[in-house]
């Protein structure tokens, strides 16, 4: 009888350990999935932030913004071609 009880106990412990392992593994997987989703969200957020910054930089660098400001604040103007100096290549340099 004692031997039989031990077997029952061993099987019970084995069952509990196996169940606990499955449970722990599932829990870890779900937690990892949550963390992964969180990282993806953070990455998407940063991508969005980058795109927003790029859009603002593009807008600020655009001629529609830059030219009027340069004219108004700094007194600059779009140069005519006579004001653009291209230094000719020295002979034999190329």
């Amino acid at each position, binding site marked *: 009888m004692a031997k039989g009880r031990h077997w029952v106990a061993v099987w019970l412990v084995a069952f509990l350990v196996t169940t606990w392992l499955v449970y722990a593994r599932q829990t870890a997987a779900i937690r990892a999935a949550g963390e992964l989703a969180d990282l993806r969200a953070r990455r998407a*957020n940063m991508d969005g932030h980058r*795109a927003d910054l790029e859009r603002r930089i593009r807008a600020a660098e655009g*001629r529609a913004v830059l030219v009027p400001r340069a004219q108004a604040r700094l007194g600059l*103007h779009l140069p005519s*071609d006579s004001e653009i*100096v291209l230094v000719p*290549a020295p002979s034999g340099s190329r």
Partner: protein
Amino acid sequence: MARPAVRIQVVEFGVLVGLALLVGRAAQVQILHGRRWAEEAQAQRTERIVLQARRGALYDRHGTPLAVTQETYHVGIAPNELRDPAADGALISRRLGLTARAWQQALRRRYAYFAGPYSALEVQPLRSVRGVHLESVLNRFYPDPAVARATIGRVGDDVLGASGLERTLDSLLAGRSGAAVVLKDRAGREYESPARVIAPPVPGLDVVLTLDAELQEIAQRALDDALRRMDADGGDVVMLDPGTGEVLALASRQRDGSARPSAFTDTFEPGSLAKIFAAAALLSLRRVSPTDHVSGEGGKWRVLGRTITDEDPQPSLTMADAIRVSSNIAIAKFAARLTPAEQYATLRDFGFGAFTGIEFPAEATGRLRPPSEWTRPSAASLAMGYELSVTPIQVAMAYGALANDGLLLQPTLIREVRSASGGVRYRHRPEPVRRVVSREVAVALRNLLRGVVEHGTGAEAALTNFPVAAKTGTARRVVNGRYAAGEYTASFAALFPADQPQLVLVVKIDNPHKGSYFAAQTAAPVTRSMLEQALAARTVALDRARLSTAAPHAAAAPVDDDGGLVPYVVPWPYQPDSAGVGPRRAVPDVAGFGMREAVRTLHRRGFRVSLRGWGVAEHTWPAAGDSAAAGSMVTLFADPHAADRLRSRGAAAPRRGSRR
């Protein structure tokens, strides 16, 4: 009453029958209907989902993103799950831009859904709010929506190309969706990450366009200003590189502000722009010599029952004079030396009446009738640019052939196609269509066009230091099949510089109402303005080293000769965009480096860095060992699993500074 033994037997029999029924039912459920129940159970616990593929990006020729794909969100609200409806409601309303009334309506529903789409930035504070459910969806994003809108096109609600290049390139850009199985909990809510990926999504290819974002902006602004100033119905600007056929800028605008791709789809009679093609036929076939003169007829010539007039009457004209002052009478007289077949073949060879073959979903061929359909005045009309309809892109390519020493190229909008990992799948090479005229004839024709700017109708486009070759064209407009009184199309085609042209510009102004309607006073100054802006813009695709040798033809203005204004000095040697801006040097091998170290290494070597992906550096474009100009952009591709791949290839990975 039965004996106990009998009662026991009855009970035993009953139990046996019960057990048999149970086993039978179990067998029915497990064996006969097992597959159906298993499928039903799986359906309750799992769901097959589609993994959207990232749509490839569109870049301009310098790598400026024109269309990219971003993760956006639809937002669902379950009001009964909100912990603090008042505070949460205020936050949600603020982030989603809802009015108080809209929020109150949402609260009355069991589940409110806001399609948005909302950006990751907008929904970030809502992620931690209980009762808010985010559904991510990939969406198309145009960093500067106004740039080349008609050319780039748009995607539809199904994120497939609906118009423009988005449509033409859809098969390249779209990628292939994947599939995955996700687990659901008892309440039917999906777990956050797929349990099993059946097929990973394959991202679309990235496409580098030939467009130059800065030239495009110059063209759009110049066209907008011109239309406003002249109160015109619309207009188009085309700029292209004649040596490669690459279209650098395309701007189209209508009076109502809309921007349909009329440079490809709308035809017009080119008027005097076409005179140079009659001259091309005459010179190629040696039907005219430089000393040949024809009478100017006092500015009015009646022929074949039709009166031809000149705006600037001359007593007698050579071919050069005919082009310079845009004489209808002289070109009609010279063109009479050609047979209809010769005249038709020349126009056809320059690409009129046929598709150019550009990668755009809609393109008009224009109209060039075969000689069998001509009337008696057709030869004279065609020489003057009538009885012929063309698109601005056709005109640009035809003038491009003159700039390209007589070789007509196929125009293109696509410079490169790259895979998501950065590998180049396709790179454009100039595609000759045919030789239209010999090199000598092309040079002679360019000289004729140069005379137009130096002493003729195109003087308003002249630059002080750079020779320009161009032709004006002012043609009556056809409205409902008839020439409309007082309505004109002013057009201008220019080659810059006149020697070894780097840029072909075509400007078309539809029906200018204010001021002059002549191209000499409308389209020519717009061309000059765009050229000056292009010269002053450092990133524009012009080879300034070659320009510097073209410049000394005219005496440069003294540096301090303009009221003390400081001139804009372009650094020399200037390298074209493809070559970068500094001396060439080898790209270092950063494969296996951590991102930070890889970027530092490239910076130390003098390169700018554009990042693709994250994790461990895998490769660069240009590749390690290739030479690239200092200051040019190197694209660094990284991947979290790059170290494993590099190790399997035998590289020492991860290397110094790598971070996992």
